[in-house]
């Protein structure tokens, strides 16, 4: 997947790719353009230029809903839970089109909390439950590429751990994951590679070991 964008100076000539069964994180300060990059891949950004390829096919003019049907699964930074829809409606809203969609029963088996609250409105769930729901929702569709925008933000360690398990499992199943993440420790437990995004450009490409060794420097850089 390669992309080049030029829009309001948010992203400038970014090019990256994620392979099947690979987890790649995007790290960078607030405003570095991480969320914009995910939105561009999803086709949600109106004024973007560049190309997005999925398994070699150009998604250039493909509208967002078709991108989703071709296997892109989007988990936005605010988790994207419909407050007015029940848990089950939230889960079943996106059509299951991918190669290996999860049946609802499997979702509830993997996420018993969601099964217990299937009739509750999405707005009534806790932050952790909402994040689980957002992930479960794209997994259910059988998406081959997950675009996750800071899934661990503001969540308890035990929930973060669970998210890690889910992402690792997805990876084992051959799913490509592009993860926006500020939590470097977490990132190194799930990801294969990392891109450091700085003012709309990719400043560095890092391996897990680089991140571990330079943790202090990077944290300082990220302003954390």
């Amino acid at each position, binding site marked *: 997947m390669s992309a080049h964008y030029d829009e309001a100076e948010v992203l400038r000539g970014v090019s990256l790719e994620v392979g099947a069964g690979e987890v790649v994180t995007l790290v960078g300060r607030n405003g570095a353009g991480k969320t914009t990059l995910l939105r561009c891949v999803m086709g949600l950004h109106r004024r973007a230029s560049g190309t997005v390829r999925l398994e070699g096919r150009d998604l250039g003019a493909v509208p967002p809903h078709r991108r989703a049907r071709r296997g892109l699964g989007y988990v936005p930074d605010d988790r994207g839970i419909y407050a007015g829809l029940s848990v089950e409606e939230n889960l079943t809203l996106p059509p299951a*089109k991918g190669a290996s969609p999860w049946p609802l029963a499997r979702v509830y088996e993997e996420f018993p909390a969601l099964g217990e609250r299937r009739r509750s409105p999405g707005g009534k769930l806790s932050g952790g439950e909402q994040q689980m729901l957002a992930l479960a929702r794209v997994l259910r569709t059988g998406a081959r590429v997950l675009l996750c925008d800071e899934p661990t933000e503001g969540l308890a360690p035990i929930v973060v751990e669970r998210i890690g398990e889910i992402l690792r499992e997805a990876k084992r199943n051959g799913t490509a994951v592009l993860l926006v993440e500020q939590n470097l420790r977490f990132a190194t437990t799930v990801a294969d590679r990392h891109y450091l995004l700085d003012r709309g450009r990719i400043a560095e490409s890092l391996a897990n070991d680089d991140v571990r060794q330079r943790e202090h420097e990077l944290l300082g850089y990220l302003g954390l």
Partner: protein
Amino acid sequence: MTSFLQQAFNGLVSGGFYALLALGLAVIFGMLHVVNFAHGAIYMLGAFGAVALQDTAGLGFWWALLLVPLTAALAGMVLERLFIHRLAALDPLYNFLLTFGIALVCQDLLRMKYGAQSRPYDEGPFPGSVDLGPFDYPAYQVFVLGAAAVVCLAVWLLLTRTRIGTVVRASTERPELTRALGIDTGRWVTPVFGFGVALAALAGVLAAPMRAVNSGMGADLIIAVFAVVVIGGLGSIPGAVVAGFAIGMLQALGNLYVPVLSQTSVFVLMAVVLLVRPAGLFGKEEHAL
């Protein structure tokens, strides 16, 4: 006490009209993010449609109740495809102006044809009275209230119990996310607009036997309906229905106890709601304009 109950009932009948109109506005706003200023004109056209069927084809109330909303839905879908759709990507103001212009054109065309005078319409079905215990009430108006309630309930079930309903609610709450989740929201825009328009036309047909049918009837009513929508929360379906009936009651009881304030009370309430909860009683903040 009897008079209180009677007036409350009056209020419910008025509220039925408000609810039907506000419901259409809410559905349209939710899906299209267009405040349909032509809604009052469509209500008026609905009533004129009933008159026209009676005068030209000799078709009575029941035919009108069937044919007029259907025609309105079709016309609304054509309108959406031809005009509203083209402006959808621009600032919402363009569609406000467009629908406002359409309302004025409709009103003035009818005024040119028929003048500002009212058009006669038959009494409608159910000429008798219904014994409601402490008081009698015109059967037709009881029917109108029942019809409004049934339609509101049906729309509610449609929205909460069907796939289309889920999609519409999702698109209303988060249009962009819904597209990113694989739903072609554009496909639903036109039918939803047609549906909202049909509700307004239905209210117009229901009004014909009990209200003056003239080119100004929609413009007079729609101001109160916009207040209802603002109070209930723009785009909120339960808000539209609850506020519709509540405002109807408020006006009727106002007429009974403080006649001077009955009209202003709606707008005072609107001002208070806007100050305390800018998004309306049932609205969510992000929907506030």
